[in-house]
C-alpha cells in the first residue's frame, strides 16, 4: 500500500500546469476593437421606444438636443408621456378638432406647455434660447395623414424646426 502511494506521488509530481490565456486575450482584443468601433462619441443619443420601427435612411446628421416627440403605432408621446391614442395607424377621432381635422388639441396643449416652459427658461438664462426644435420618432408604417396632423399641430405650437429620427444604414 505504502509503495503504491509513493508511486502515485511520484507520478503526480510533474502534474502542475500554467493556464494558456493567449486565445482568451485574442478574443477579448477582438471584442474591444468591435466595441470601440461602435462606440458613440455623440453628446446626444436617441433610444427608440420599445416596438417602434423607425425608417432607415442614409443621412449622417447627428441627433441634437431637442424636445422628444414619439409617434408610435399605439399613440403620440411627448417626452415619454402618452398624450393621444392611435388606432390602426390613425389618430383617435375624439382627439381631433371638428373644425380643423388636422389639429390635435391634446398634443397642442402639451407642446404649448413645453414651449412656455422653454421660453420662461430662455428669459431667465441668456445662454438658453427657445429655437422650436423637435425630434420626431415616427413608426415607418404610419401613413402621412397621421404625421401631417402631428407636424401641423407641432408647428402651430411653435415647434417648426422638425428633425426626423431614422435608423442609420451605414
Amino acid at each position, binding site marked *: 500500500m505504502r509503495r503504491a502511494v509513493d508511486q502515485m506521488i511520484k507520478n503526480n509530481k510533474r502534474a502542475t500546469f*500554467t493556464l494558456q*490565456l*493567449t486565445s*482568451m*486575450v485574442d478574443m*477579448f*482584443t477582438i*471584442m*474591444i476593437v468591435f*466595441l*470601440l468601433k*461602435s*462606440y*458613440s462619441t455623440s453628446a446626444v*443619443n*436617441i*433610444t*427608440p421606444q420599445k416596438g417602434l420601427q*423607425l*425608417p*432607415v*435612411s*442614409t*443621412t*449622417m*446628421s*447627428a*441627433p*441634437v438636443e431637442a424636445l422628444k416627440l414619439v409617434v408610435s403605432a399605439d399613440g403620440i408621446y411627448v417626452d415619454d408621456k402618452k398624450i393621444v391614442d392611435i388606432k390602426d395607424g390613425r389618430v383617435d377621432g375624439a382627439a381631433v378638432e371638428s373644425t*380643423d*381635422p*388636422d389639429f390635435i388639441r391634446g398634443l397642442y396643449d402639451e407642446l404649448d406647455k413645453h414651449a412656455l416652459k422653454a421660453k420662461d427658461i430662455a428669459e431667465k438664462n441668456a445662454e438658453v434660447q427657445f429655437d422650436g426644435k423637435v*425630434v420626431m*420618432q*415616427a*413608426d*415607418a*408604417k*404610419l*401613413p*402621412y*395623414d397621421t*404625421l*401631417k396632423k402631428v*407636424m*401641423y399641430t*407641432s*408647428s*402651430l405650437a411653435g415647434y*417648426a*424646426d*422638425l*428633425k*426626423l*429620427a*431614422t*435608423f*442609420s444604414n*451605414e
Partner: protein
Amino acid sequence: MAKTYKRITQDADASFDLDLTPMLALIVNLIPIMLLSTVFVRVMVIESPLPQVVQKALDEDRNKKDREVTISLDMKPTGFVLQVKRDGQLLKNVDMPKQNSKWDLVKLHSEVARVKAENPTVFRMDLNPDREVAYDEIVKVIDEVRKSNTTDPKIQLMDKETNKLVETDLMFPDVVFANVVEG
C-alpha cells in the same frame, strides 16, 4: 569548453512565458464599461423645417426675389409629379407613374439630378405626399433627392469670393413638407 557548455545551458533556461494576467484584468474591466456605453443601433436625424403658419405668407412675400425658382414633388397614389416653377409660371412638369405599384425611385433620382443641374443654386424642394403614403416611403424619397450619385451630372456652383467653380454632391438637402399647412 566546459565554460561554453555552461553558457548554453543558462541560455536554454532563459525562456519564459509572458504574464498576461494584468492585461486580462484590464480587459475584463474595460469590456463591461464599453458594453454599457456602446450604442449598437445608431439613430440619425433628417432635418426638415416646417413652414410657419403665420410667417409663411410673410416670408414668401419678403423672399420672392430670393426664391424665383420653386421645385416641388408630389407623391400621388398614381406616382410622382415633379414640377419646376419660375415666378409662379410652370417651366417643367414630369410625371413618373408607379411601376408595378412601386415608386419609381430610379427615374425620380435621374429627373431630380437633371433639374438640379439646371438650377444649381436651388437647394430647397417642396414635398407634397398624399395622405395615404407610408412614412418609410417618404424617407426613401428624401434620401433620393438629398444627394447625387457619381453617375449624375456634376453640380457646380460659383464661389463669389474666389470666382471659382465648386463641385458639390448635395442636390436638395432642404426638403420641406409644404402641404402640412394646407389643411
